């Protein structure tokens, strides 16, 4: 193992036994920290447990779950475990579906967060002589400041380009010699389209070598398409504001699942109905317990993200658990005529067609009491041939049916017709009666 391949050599290369010993020690501390707060005191009392009940790592299952609703109910500061004067930052969700959620950070929390992001970026080959352009929203969205501080911690020249204004982004990439970009996947696609229009070839005209993409569930097919477009490796990043933000999990150069940092989190995968653990390899809901947070530690937080365990060892030398890319969120799941469907399943199929561009929109409607799904997708290349378009439509319908067991209405649309967002892409519009 070469030390220079790791940002935190000591922690990244721990054996499983060492990881688990460290987790137990940190879990005990975290529980102590939580019990400084009334909300957790009450929860522990209701569950009939005390700090002394945590004697082994498996005892984590005795702890009560925490949900987004808890964060809303205690809005804004009800789950703080330190006095507010010890906090230096807060991040908040948009609150489109109720009270927003607030996450507080001490200076140490921010330092640890930056360390996780730096660890990730180092892992995929970035070094202090790289130029890192963060084309992600700043402000309350943690993808902005999270990557900013992490890239600075690593020592890169960091360009806080933020999202949007693609022409300016491209100018920065060329003028500053940007070698790495972080953005949501749909924005990378958008950036490539603008490059093409401007006659810029990313392979020829830029020094790009790494893309970090995350914050939107995306399929392996979408990743491969992005890699082909830009001519560089694209690594999947997992984060959520409740766990700081980006940094929690990241792909290593093997690109075989995301390493979740177990010196910072306890990872559980549970059945979302029974809340019992599922065996490795089976899909379930990701549940995370923070191990290094002071201001707002979270115990067994239900992320709603669906994934599965791929393994606990890796040729890269890291034994931190590897999880599959997110299958979508349990609350993104569409139920159509009794069938459970995730947008990512549709995306996976659409990306298999070179004739199609990357932008698509799923609309659910009720027509005469029947629920229908319409999939609109942009054509990559115009054609003079009706037969080809009709065959394409038929083939898309057929492959979608194989995947989701329903036949959606497929609409081919001209490129540039569907709305492009510069933040997270809107992929599903639900206009069904029952939801109005």
């Amino acid at each position, binding site marked *: 193992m070469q030390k220079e391949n790791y940002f935190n050599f000591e922690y990244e290369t721990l054996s499983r036994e060492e990881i688990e010993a460290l987790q137990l020690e940190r879990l005990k501390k975290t529980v102590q920290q939580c019990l400084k707060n009334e909300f957790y005191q009450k929860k522990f009392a209701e569950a009939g447990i005390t700090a002394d009940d945590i004697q082994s790592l498996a005892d984590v299952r005795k702890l009560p779950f925490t949900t987004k609703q808890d964060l809303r109910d205690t809005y804004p500061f009800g789950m703080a475990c330190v006095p507010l004067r010890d906090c230096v930052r807060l991040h908040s969700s948009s609150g489109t579906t109720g009270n927003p959620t607030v996450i507080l950070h001490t200076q140490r929390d921010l330092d640890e967060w930056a360390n996780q992001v730096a660890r990730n970026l180092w892992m995929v080959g970035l070094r202090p002589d790289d130029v890192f352009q963060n084309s992600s929203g700043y402000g309350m969205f943690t993808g902005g400041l999270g990557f900013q501080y992490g890239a600075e911690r690593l020592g890169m020249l960091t360009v806080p380009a933020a999202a949007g204004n693609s022409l300016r982004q491209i100018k920065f990439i060329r003028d500053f010699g940007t070698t790495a970009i972080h953005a949501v996947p749909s924005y990378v696609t958008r950036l490539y389209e603008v490059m093409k229009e401007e006659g810029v070839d990313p392979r020829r005209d830029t020094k790009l070598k790494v893309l970090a993409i995350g914050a939107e569930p995306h399929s392996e097919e979408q990743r491969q398409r992005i890699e082909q477009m830009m001519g560089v490796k694209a690594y999947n990043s997992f984060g959520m504001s409740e766990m700081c933000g980006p940094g929690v999990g990241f792909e290593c150069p093997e690109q075989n699942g995301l390493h979740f940092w177990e010196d910072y989190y306890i990872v559980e995968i549970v059945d979302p109905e029974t809340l019992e653990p599922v065996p490795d390899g089976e899909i379930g809901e990701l549940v995370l317990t923070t191990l290094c947070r002071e201001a707002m530690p979270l115990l067994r937080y239900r992320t709603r993200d669906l994934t599965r365990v791929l393994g606990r060892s890796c040729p890269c030398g890291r034994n931190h658990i590897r999880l599959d890319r997110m299958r979508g969120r349990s609350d993104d799941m569409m139920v159509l005529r009794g069938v459970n469907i995730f947008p990512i399943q549709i995306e996976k199929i659409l990306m298999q067609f070179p004739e199609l561009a990357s932008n698509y929109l799923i609309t659910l409607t009720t027509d005469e009491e029947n629920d229908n799904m319409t999939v609109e997708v942009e054509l990559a290349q*115009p*054609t*003079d041939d009706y037969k080809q378009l009709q065959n394409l439509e038929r083939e898309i319908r057929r492959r979608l049916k194989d995947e989701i067991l329903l036949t959606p209405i497929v609409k081919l649309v001209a490129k540039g017709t569907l709305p492009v967002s510069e933040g997270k892409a809107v992929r599903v519009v639900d206009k069904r009666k029952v939801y109005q």
Partner: protein
Amino acid sequence: MTIHQLSIFIENRSGTLIRVLNALKEANIQIIASTIADTAEYGIYRLICSEPLRACEELKKANIAVALSDVFAIAIDDQPGRAAEAVKTFSEAGISIIYMYSFLLGGKGILIFRTDDAQRAQQIIEERHLSVINESDLQHIS
């Protein structure tokens, strides 16, 4: 032997056609002939115009997806039965016409068409001495 035709994918939604026409107008491109066939959801707008290569560039600049294709254009006398004669020449040779449209120009009927076998169609046109219209003829007349 062939001339350039522009093919534009158009959704059945008001406003899409005018976007294309406005872009051509801005670029001072003259439309010589055009046709739209429709299906339930979309159509392909095919057109013959002055300066097709420049037209194509201008449309792309306006973010309109356009394909350039090669089609045959032959001139026939403006009299009953001439179109039948022309098409018969191809059908007898086993060539299918995928689509065709026509217009009058300078007292001649012009047939624009695409076949399932361009190479063979070209042979037939040469053998039968059909009157081929090329791009400069169109520019000249228009």
